């Protein structure tokens, strides 16, 4: 029997779906115990909706990726792989062995995710076998800092943390800045609620980010760095710690790296739970141990950053591109993407999309291709209503704009932003006004309070949106929302406030009718706004099973067993538990 490699996806998403139990079962399987198969614990494969995932490869590299695997099935899967038999229980996602390609791999191009799901994140050897630290070697031994910067500029790489500033130019500013001491910082705060690209990269391929930081440090002349990771990502932090430790022992971090004059130390800082700390000046205040409040720029971090020293700050995904560009050349990188947006972009697909998970496509791919070809389309029969991009700073685009290409400028043109890559798909069960309220509630909570417009303005906007959702809105509220939005944009210091009105502005632009229905008809078409819906029991469908009455948190449902039940509207809090728990579709929501 040929020797097999069996990989289990052990990212946070896999673990949450029970991948650990699958791993344990695999350890006990005959193939592994007898030494015929080697187990590998890898990161996220990207198909998070059908976790746990197991991939089997033979010596020729012919693979089959199985989804929804349970511990009981592991032996069966290995047998099926060997016999080439089509098993029906598990989804076969991709198979070079049998030629099945269920998911559209062909539209994807993996630069950032080049090692994700392939290597063991805790193994330095695995990384080295995939050309790891070769780019560092090339820069340190064959390139001058300025050549590295020119190469980055030529590649056209723009920051993936949101703003899309040229990475090469940013490095150049920090390189030119005067100072004996310089820092590089990796922004791994990933605050957009609904995005998980950076988490997956850090969990699955931490060395690629570290190598990017080392190259950045060499280019700008820094000898110390920080990775700022949010505390909600314990596994990412663990893998980073292991990676740093191994890189130090192997001499990639420390004094006189690869026998050159270049030295570098690297620290991890855990975030402490504040969205605004993703903003670069707030992030640095937080590293310094202070409240994470943004500061006025200029001076930019490249001139005066950590403790007043020139500092270069980049996002995780930006840094994960660097080593690839150095090894493959800026020209190769610039082949992908559009005129102004080069390379690829990783998206975290979530919401009502079928294949939620992690994907990477060339810039310029349209939203329609991302959602329907790569993402497999909608999860249920409910049609697509809106796509949310860029989180609390971004916007909601309607179905009619799905042919918009994903590049920085096209998206801004439509009122959204590329953001960090969170892409949440919404269907007809989502209320757009409620979504706008949701984001305002988020930014209002996360506003650090420094600027009056951001602090008070978002609060006023939230109050208005709440009123509209309660059916108490007036027509004049729409103008008020617009004028508040414009003032908040102008009067705020940092990107949080400047972009906070975006979700409201885009929904007003594309979904005004839905606001009007709430205001004029006091109706919520999606049935989400609790004040505007009423739950009722259909007498001819109710069989009196008493489930709803027992589940109701406020005892608002009356009725004896085997008799028709009635909802007492005065006591109903519209939580929807009865609606969800009724097995006879006897409850209506209107």
């Amino acid at each position, binding site marked *: 029997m040929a020797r097999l490699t069996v990989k289990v996806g052990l990212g*946070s*998403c896999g*673990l*949450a*779906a029970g991948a650990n139990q699958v791993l344990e079962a695999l350890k006990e399987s005959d193939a592994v115990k007898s030494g015929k198969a080697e187990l590998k614990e890898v990161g996220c494969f990207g198909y*998070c*909706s059908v*976790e746990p995932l197991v991939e089997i490869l033979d010596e020729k590299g012919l693979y089959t990726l199985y989804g929804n695997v349970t511990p009981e099935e592991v032996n069966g899967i290995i047998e099926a792989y060997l016999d080439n038999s089509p098993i029906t229980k598990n989804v076969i996602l991709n198979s070079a062995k049998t030629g099945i390609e269920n998911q559209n791999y062909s539209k994807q191009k993996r630069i950032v995710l080049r090692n994700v799901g392939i290597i063991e994140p805790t193994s330095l050897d695995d990384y080295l076998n995939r050309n790891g630290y070769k780019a560092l070697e090339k820069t340190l031994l064959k390139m001058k800092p300025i050549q590295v910067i020119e190469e980055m500029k030529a590649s056209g790489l723009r920051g993936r943390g949101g703003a899309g500033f040229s990475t090469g130019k940013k490095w150049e500013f920090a390189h030119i800045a005067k100072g004996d001491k310089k820092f590089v910082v990796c922004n791994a705060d*990933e*605050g*957009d*609620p*609904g*995005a*998980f690209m950076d*988490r997956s990269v850090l969990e699955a391929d931490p060395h690629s980010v570290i190598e990017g930081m080392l190259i950045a440090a060499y280019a700008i002349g820094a000898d110390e760095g920080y990775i700022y990771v949010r505390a*909600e*990502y*314990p596994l990412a932090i663990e893998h980073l710690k292991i990676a740093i430790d191994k890189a130090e022992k192997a001499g990639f971090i420390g004094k006189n790296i690869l026998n050159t004059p270049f030295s570098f130390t690297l620290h991890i*800082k*855990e975030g*402490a*739970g*504040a969205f605004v700390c993703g903003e670069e000046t707030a992030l640095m205040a*937080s*590293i*310094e*141990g*202070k*409240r*994470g409040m943004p500061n006025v720029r200029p001076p930019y971090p490249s001139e005066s950053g950590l*403790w007043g020293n020139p500092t270069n700050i980049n996002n995780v995904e930006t840094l994960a591109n660097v080593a690839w560009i150095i090894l493959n050349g800026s020209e190769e990188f610039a082949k992908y993407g559009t005129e102004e947006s080069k390379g690829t972009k990783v998206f*975290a*697909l*979530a*919401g*009502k999309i079928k294949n*939620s*998970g992690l994907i990477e496509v060339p810039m310029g791919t349209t939203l329609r291709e991302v959602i329907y070809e790569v993402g497999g389309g909608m999860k249920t029969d409910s049609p697509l209503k809106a796509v*949310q991009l860029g*989180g609390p700073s971004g916007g909601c685009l309607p179905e009619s704009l799905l042919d918009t290409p994903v590049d920085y400028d096209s998206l801004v043109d439509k009122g959204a932003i590329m953001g960090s890559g*969170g892409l*949440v798909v*919404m269907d007809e*069960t*989502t209320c757009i006004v409620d*979504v706008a309220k*949701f*984001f305002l509630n*988020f930014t209002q909570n*996360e506003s*650090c309070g420094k600027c009056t417009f951001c602090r008070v303005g978002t609060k006023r906007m939230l109050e208005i949106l709440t009123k509209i959702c309660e059916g108490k809105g007036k027509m004049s509220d729409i103008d008020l929302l617009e004028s508040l939005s414009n003032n908040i944009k102008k009067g705020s210091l940092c990107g949080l406030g400047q972009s906070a009105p975006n979700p409201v502005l885009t929904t007003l632009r594309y979904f005004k009718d839905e606001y009007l229905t709430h205001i004029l008809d006091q109706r919520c078409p999606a049935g989400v706004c609790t004040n505007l819906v009423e739950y009722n029991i259909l007498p001819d469908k109710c069989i009196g099973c008493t489930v709803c009455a027992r*589940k109701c*948190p406020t005892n608002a449902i009356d009725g004896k067993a085997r008799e028709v039940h009635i909802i007492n509207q005065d006591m109903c*809090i519209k*939580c*929807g*538990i009865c609606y*969800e*728990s009724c097995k006879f579709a006897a409850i209506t929501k209107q």
Partner: protein
Amino acid sequence: MDLRKQLERIIFKYEFVNGSLIPMLQEIQELEGYLSKETMKMVSDISGIGVADIFGVATFYTVFRLKPQGKHTIRICKGTACHVSNADLILTTLRNELDLEEGEDTTADNKFTLFEVACLGCCSLAPVIMIDNTTYGKLDPQKISEILASY
């Protein structure tokens, strides 16, 4: 060891590390599960850092707890993906099962404390909750009671 001694040990460890107030307070928080006013005053006393600075940092970041905590921490995700997947219903069910009064976040028997957080990074499994370090995804109200019963 009394509290003061334990505090001294932690504070001394961080004394010469740049920007260490946040990790230091995090470690101190682990002693009692939260930061009481008295503890913060003592920290100021020992370290010479102003009470206002300590209090300012402790109130700014959500990792810091200013009230005693239950034995298990339940984090319910209120991120975008979970929100559009009816996380509100999960929240109502949780509060209901835990018998939490309006405004309360710790159960009467001190077994659970419930927090709302913005995104646990497992959006593809929405709606999601995390109890201590275990994540549960693809939830519906029925699953909640089973999960709680296992604690």
